[in-house]
């Protein structure tokens, strides 16, 4: 109460976020979705969609609250239409 946040490896975090959004938010598989320079990054767009669904602060960034939700056990059916 409250639990101290764990220090996360940045690469692992990005992998978790990409995998989660691909599984449940129809993020298209792309070698480097976070490195695109034109228009809004699809990863950020999907992240915002996920944050909105779960009532989190919509930042488009994988903050601690967002990562906490992503790590929770869940149903394998996507939250959005594929």
């Amino acid at each position, binding site marked *: 109460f409250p639990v101290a946040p764990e220090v996360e490896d940045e690469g692992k975090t990005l992998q978790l976020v990409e995998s989660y959004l691909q599984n*449940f938010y129809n993020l298209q598989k792309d070698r480097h979705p976070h490195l695109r320079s034109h228009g809004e990054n699809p990863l950020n767009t999907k992240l915002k969609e996920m944050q909105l669904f779960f009532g989190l602060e919509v930042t488009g960034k994988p903050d601690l609250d967002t990562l906490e939700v992503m790590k929770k056990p869940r149903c394998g*059916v996507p*939250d959005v239409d594929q």
Partner: protein
Amino acid sequence: YVFTPGNPKWKRNNLTYRILNYTPKMRRADVDEAIRKALSVWSNVTPLTFQKVEDKEADIMISFAYRDHRDNSPFDGPNGQLAHAFQPGEGIGGDVHMDEEEAWTKDGRGYNLFIVLAHELGHSLGLSHSNDPGALMYPTYSYTDPNEFLLPQDDIDGIQAIYGQSNTAVQPTGPVTPEACDPNLTFDAITTLRGELFFFKGRYMLRKHPARTETELNFISLFWPKLPSGIQAAYENVERDEILIFKEDKYWVIEGYDVLPGYPKPIYGLGFPKTVKRVNAAYNDEATGKTYFFVADRYWRYDEKKKSMDHGYPRKIVSDFGKIGRVDAAFQKDGYVYFFHGTTQFQFDPRAKRIVRQMKSTSWFNC
């Protein structure tokens, strides 16, 4: 609630199901019971019926599967994805797949098979994920004791919008997820805990940290899986760093995340007469070490050092706490006692022995 895109639904109300295999982690009879109970969650609130079949194709085929199980949606091993199900339709439509690598149980350890199955069957019937955190169709797992489970109203509304109401004379209703800023919100119990406030309501608690603006909504079972829902009174004993939780004629003592062994115990061990069936509210006065228990229109005072009720009690609440006749919940903070009755809150000054302020019950949530 959310419908599956395209609004798929079964054209018939009499559906069949088949159990293709069993998990070795549970007794077959317990798996059968979990499936029967999960189906009844939906049949109780709609005109749908489910008939078990063997050795032939059923509308809903239920199986335990391992990793890649040839449906283009491989499981990922322990934790993560627990199960998935397909929308109503021919062939694979309606089928439920459970990840064999999960720790399936019939209770609160690991993952409760009944809870997960009931959720998946919602998909089999045409519901998508709800963003109501209290709904069964919310995508993340949270444990509820199957014996206490009531289908939340959000799910009832969703499934009835697809299949209509149940044929029973009295329509079932379910619990609604509390919202901190609902002006009609009332509380079952409230306690301080290490500087935070915990407001109990049904199977939820609203957690308010003084330094954070937002209020967190959690299931009670997330922190304390052994506690029941519908807690009726709670108080913190700061000196012992414990909270005591009351429901009906029992109480539990909690230290951090742990419910102490040997609990629940009967409240009569604290000195209540057998005529007392439940405690409505309680708070501990840090300065004196006395705990005040509120039962109907009376209150008792308990000496935490002597571990006995003080003489001369019960007394009428109205005699010593002004116009506060009955109390739903109470806590002490910064020298004041806060009493809750319905949607009203009274701030009581124990030194002056009078009510100094009257507020809405939700005043703590920055609404």
